């Protein structure tokens, strides 16, 4: 295993690599099948800058997400995009790192209101496949100087470069939170209710639906200061009245636990099934659900994100043919990954662009080969 202690060493190791490298932060979010010598970023650790008054934080790639979240919490702030913790779903150990989070564009329920990880990412430093050190973006939240490679690196899963440092925009943590709950809705009604809530002026920061039949529950989260929550909770309850009786969960700790379950998709953890992550237009979610009747489903982002646990080997993309969007195979046996493909195939002109980018940023094809473009 290669374990650089600083960026120079990282660049040296990539430059000198004789064969493929499997890049690992905490190793908590493995995706697809890749080979090679492990290159761990764990040694590149530590928060290098945190200015609460400027809502910005910079950390080395191997810094544990938990360390950053603790530093933010001490100042009453947080990561806006509520990054998912993949450990339960994937059955992995280790500690999620800032670099891994950025490389996976890991985003949770609040993505629907506050944007994804890529939206809060304002700067990166990385080492490309040739060993060159590149910086893009910076530590300020408004920056259009040159092309936005920060976005390109977010979600590229290390295939265009190994992140060495990331800068994020952070937000204040609101004082109060409540969750409204509707019971027994089918997917169609649930998506309608969530769309109405998200289309209201009350800034719903989570809209999820899980379970079947009478056990189904539709969850809507409000966050803000105390008097704001009092107002919004009443107004949103009234708006939701046509969809059934509205229950209110106003215990903060219980609310946190509830949304952690949604965020981490813990309902689909520790099972034999394959797990797919499907991105669709929310109003297409009911049709997708109808086609996936046999699967266990969790709807987040108002229906725009569907987590599906299916029988091993089932070709979910074929089942959803004609529904706009795309599906990623998140958890499956290596043979299934090989047979169905981890990522959705791209249209030929887009595939050409992706391959072109990959070939230029990693000409030797040594960074996580087999993943992405």
């Amino acid at each position: 295993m290669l374990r650089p202690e600083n960026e120079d060493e990282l660049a040296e190791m990539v430059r000198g690599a004789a064969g493929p490298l499997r890049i690992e932060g905490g190793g908590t979010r493995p995706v697809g099948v890749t080979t090679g010598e492990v290159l761990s970023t764990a040694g590149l650790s530590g928060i290098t800058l945190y200015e609460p008054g400027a809502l910005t934080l910079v950390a080395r790639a191997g810094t544990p997400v938990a360390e950053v979240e603790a530093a933010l919490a001490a100042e009453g702030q947080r990561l806006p995009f509520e990054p998912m913790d993949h450990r339960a779903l994937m059955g992995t150990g280790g500690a999620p790192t800032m670099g891994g989070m950025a490389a996976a564009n890991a985003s949770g329920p609040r993505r629907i209101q506050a944007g994804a990880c890529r939206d809060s990412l304002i700067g990166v430093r990385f080492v490309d496949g040739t060993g060159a050190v590149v910086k893009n973006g910076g530590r300020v939240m408004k920056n259009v100087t040159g092309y936005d490679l920060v976005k390109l690196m977010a979600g590229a899963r290390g295939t265009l470069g190994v992140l060495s440092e990331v800068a994020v925009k952070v937000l204040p943590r609101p004082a109060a939170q409540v969750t409204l709950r509707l019971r027994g809705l089918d997917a169609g009604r649930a998506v309608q209710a969530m769309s109405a809530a998200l289309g209201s002026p009350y800034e719903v920061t989570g809209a999820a639906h899980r379970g079947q039949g009478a056990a189904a529950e539709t969850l809507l989260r409000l966050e803000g200061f105390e008097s704001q929550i009092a107002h919004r909770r009443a107004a949103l309850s009234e708006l939701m009245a046509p969809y059934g009786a509205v229950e209110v969960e106003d215990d903060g700790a219980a609310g946190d636990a509830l949304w952690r379950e949604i965020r981490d998709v813990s309902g689909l953890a520790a099972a034999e099934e394959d797990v797919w992550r499907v991105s669709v237009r929310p109003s297409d979610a009911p049709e997708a659900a109808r086609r996936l009747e046999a699967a266990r489903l969790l709807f987040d982002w108002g229906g725009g994100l569907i987590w599906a646990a299916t029988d091993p080997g089932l070709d979910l993309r074929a089942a959803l043919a004609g529904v706009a969007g795309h599906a990623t195979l998140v958890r499956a046996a290596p043979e299934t990954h090989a047979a169905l493909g981890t990522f959705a195939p791209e249209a030929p002109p887009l595939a050409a662009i992706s391959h072109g980018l990959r070939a230029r940023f990693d000409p030797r094809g040594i960074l996580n080969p087999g993943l992405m473009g």
Partner: protein
Amino acid sequence: MQMPEPNADILSRKARVVERLSAVLPEDAVIHEDHELKAYECDALTAYACPPLAAILPGSTEEVAAALRICHEERVPVVPRGSGTSLAGGALPTADSVILGVARLNEVIETNYPDRYIRVQTGRTNLSVTGAVEEDDFFYAPDPSSQLACAIAGNIAMNSGGAHCLKYGVTTNNLLGVTMVQMDGTVVEIGGAHLDAAGYDLLGVICGSEGQLGVVTEATLRILRKPEGARPVLMGFASSEVAGACVSDIIKAGVLPVAIEFMDRPCIRATDDFSGAGYPDCEALLIVEVEGSDGEIDEQIGLISQIARRHDPVELREAADADEAGRIWLGRKSAFGAMGQLGDYICLDGTIPVSELPTVLNRIGALAESYGLRVANVFHAGDGNMHPLILFDANTPGQLETAEALGADILRLCVEVGGCLTGEHGVGVEKRDLMSHQFTAEDLEAQMRVKDVFDPAWLLNPAKVFPLESSRGRRGMAA
């Protein structure tokens, strides 16, 4: 500012290029007479002008593709153009280029409230996107001050911001998908009405690429429900240090205003004279706007005012209703017009870490004095995006150059304190040669590689963004 020599071979083939373009476009969509081409010789950075070889105004994605295919075959550079309001010379032609204007592509294609998006052709103006949905209480959040004129095409190319981006983000945070035509005429669909595009985040790279990767013809944009209401509070301070500290305290207190606007004394005075807004006579003025229901607004303004009082404001004025809100915004909204009354000006756009605000304002003052020019500051304080306005007289020989030299020094200062050259206006030609101050050769090389992939012959929007020296080898390929 230097531009590459026009390619004589292309100039000599003008008639042929025009003829071929005319064969695939409606008659009135190909402009090639010298007197008509004047209209396309510059954008809002009027100090630089150069009439193009021709200008075309296609009416559909297919026409854009057909025209680009021809330009690609003829090896003619193409400069995409929205409404021409770029302040960075992003849409400045070269003599051997064809301007491709999207002004005729201005339809709304689809509006979807349950899924909260609108799909438009990109020649549509920013304000008219909100105009298409506001009767239903929705809006499109990014709101550049030029929103009456600027097109979504230019907003995407420049990743434009606005007064409300502290809360709602800039263009890239509100863009879901695009239809884009590559230089060789290939039409690509990226993203769509679903939330996350598959594969690499190409949408993120295209947004802000200043028309150098492809011509964007359609866009899917996120629309949001209007807040119940919004109101500002105005505060004046005895020094910019105190105002800066107040901004930081407001943010640390956990309030997230939609806008925090800052003006310094020269700007306060000019806008007040111009608009009669009744601003206080002080060194620094903040306008902080919050949103929500009446009760929510009262509470937030109460908290903000409480913080402001700790900094001994010389004035603190809370807007109680729409009328008072309008009066508070009046001066700020007319700031650029007011400065125009004082003479010619260059509008800079660097961003700095918010904590550096007082230092940077002081050093800008000192720099201005050393150049013998006046600088007024008005900017988005919450995010550190500064707009120093350098006043000069274009009729005095040499003053433009002096003003530009001062501008370059101020932008270098922004980079030096940890910020960047441009927060929302883009690099264009204006900041092109300063790029090597912010980026290493490797940093620039990585960006140029992206262009290699999308536009291997480097024909789209030539001589922008990258220092001519850095891109020389690549641009040579166009010949």
